[in-house]
């Protein structure tokens, strides 16, 4: 995609300037890479074994097992729970009674202002103080659900509000009850609009699972540091861990973008203003979504 700035046809002078800039910037970037490689070489980080060690099946098996068994499982489970709780929170916030929406609004704002890491501490060290023991896996799921259900509540709310009143008014005038119109007419359409945002939120969730590293959870980052210690190649193993995460998240982000484009094409325009394009839960608060501020 070319930007509006690069789209116009250049004259002879402009073309020359672009050519010069291309050569110079390529040289500078090349020099940058060269310096990095020289530095790596000087510090003995380019020894082939440091890299070939990573191609053992055991390394990949352990990393990918940790990824699927811990990072992805926790993320998916927390997503399923957050989708459910988030729906409840969103419906409550859209309620007409101030007794319902005020406290829920405060609740959502409070939870969204707290760092995820604190939820992990609260769950993992705080809950056992009250005699609750869910195991590390359970605590991580609880912590991530506590945070992400508030974010999803905002996504639901934005999705429902983006639909306009016509839909629910039409349903009500057909004689449907409030809940019938919500579950049969409004939500199915709202959820479709929210899909890209939900997928992007899943990316954030997967990233957040690595925070459980700090409580000794055996997710892929922890597994990576163990392997790195064993193979004595910290840089290479951790870079591999990073690249695996990036590959998974990049694929999901692309999927979210694809969903969004398809949605636009099919339903002409309105897609819930997604963390989709910006991909962070907090970026949800774009003007049209009016949320936590």
């Amino acid at each position, binding site marked *: 995609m070319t930007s509006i*700035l690069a789209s116009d046809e250049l004259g002879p002078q402009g073309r020359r300037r672009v050519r010069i800039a291309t050569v110079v910037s390529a040289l500078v970037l090349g020099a940058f890479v060269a310096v990095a490689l020289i530095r790596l070489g000087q510090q003995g980080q380019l020894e082939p074994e440091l890299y070939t060690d990573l191609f053992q099946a055991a390394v990949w098996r352990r990393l990918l097992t940790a990824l699927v068994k811990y990072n992805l499982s926790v993320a998916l489970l927390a997503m399923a729970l957050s989708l459910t709780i988030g729906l409840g929170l969103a419906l409550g916030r859209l309620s007409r009674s101030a007794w319902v929406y005020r406290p829920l609004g405060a609740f959502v704002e409070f939870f969204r202002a*707290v760092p995820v890491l604190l939820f992990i501490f609260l769950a993992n060290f705080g809950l056992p103080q009250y005699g609750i023991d869910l195991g590390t896996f359970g605590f991580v799921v609880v912590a991530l659900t506590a945070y992400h259900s508030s974010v999803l509540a905002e996504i639901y709310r934005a999705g429902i509000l983006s639909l306009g009143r016509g839909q629910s008014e039409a349903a009500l005038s057909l004689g449907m009850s409030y809940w019938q119109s919500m579950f049969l007419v409004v939500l199915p359409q709202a959820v479709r609009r929210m899909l890209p945002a939900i997928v992007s939120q899943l990316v954030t969730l997967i990233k957040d699972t690595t925070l459980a590293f700090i409580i000794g959870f055996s997710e892929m980052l922890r597994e990576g540091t163990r392997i790195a210690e064993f193979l004595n190649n910290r840089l290479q193993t951790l870079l591999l861990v990073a690249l695996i995460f990036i590959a998974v*998240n990049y694929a999901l982000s692309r999927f979210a973008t694809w969903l969004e484009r398809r949605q636009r094409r099919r339903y002409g325009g309105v897609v819930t203003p997604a963390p989709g394009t910006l*991909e962070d839960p907090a970026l949800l608060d774009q003007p049209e979504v009016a949320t936590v*501020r």
Partner: protein
Amino acid sequence: MLDIVGEYGPRLVVGLLTTARIALLAFALAFLFGLLIAAFRVSPVPPLVRAAGLYVTFFRNIPLAVLMILVFFVLPDLDLGLSGFWSAVLALSLYSGAYLAEIIRSGINTVAAGEVEAARAVGLTFTQVLGLIVLPQALRSVVAPIGSLFIAHTKNTTVAALISAGELGDFTRRAGSASANYFTVALLVAIVFVVILVPTGSLFGVLERRVAIKR
């Protein structure tokens, strides 16, 4: 809770100040990176477009915890070791820089094409068009997302607990285990974040209305 405040209050304040320093320093750097990367991405120079795209893909998809660990534990292997504090600043600024670049780019795309054409027509160069015409308008239209990013960014400072940077996340961990009352300590820190971030959010709301371009 009061006894916890009494005993750990001073250390909590130190942690809070460290959080503030990391957040502000890293955000200033991130803004610099973001502007630069966004400018590269909209430039007509292919190598810069590629490099900027790579930067954004890498830093937006890497989990922050992985990035922090990489910066803190791997740079020393290259004889470029940084303290916990500066590792946190560097990792966070690289990370938030990628998001800022995307936000600024989306702001650039909201500027009407006619503005650019008019500027080109009077003979301004790419840098002039970007710096004098496009960016001033683009930035004003993205105050809200930048505010949200700043809040997320401030919350993200707690990830520096992984590398013991002395900020609030680190404080929670230390005071939590020392006091044997983790729940109260973590709750206290959570309240500190709410007390700081909710007003920060409204502040950005005010700023947004102030600078909004009325069309």
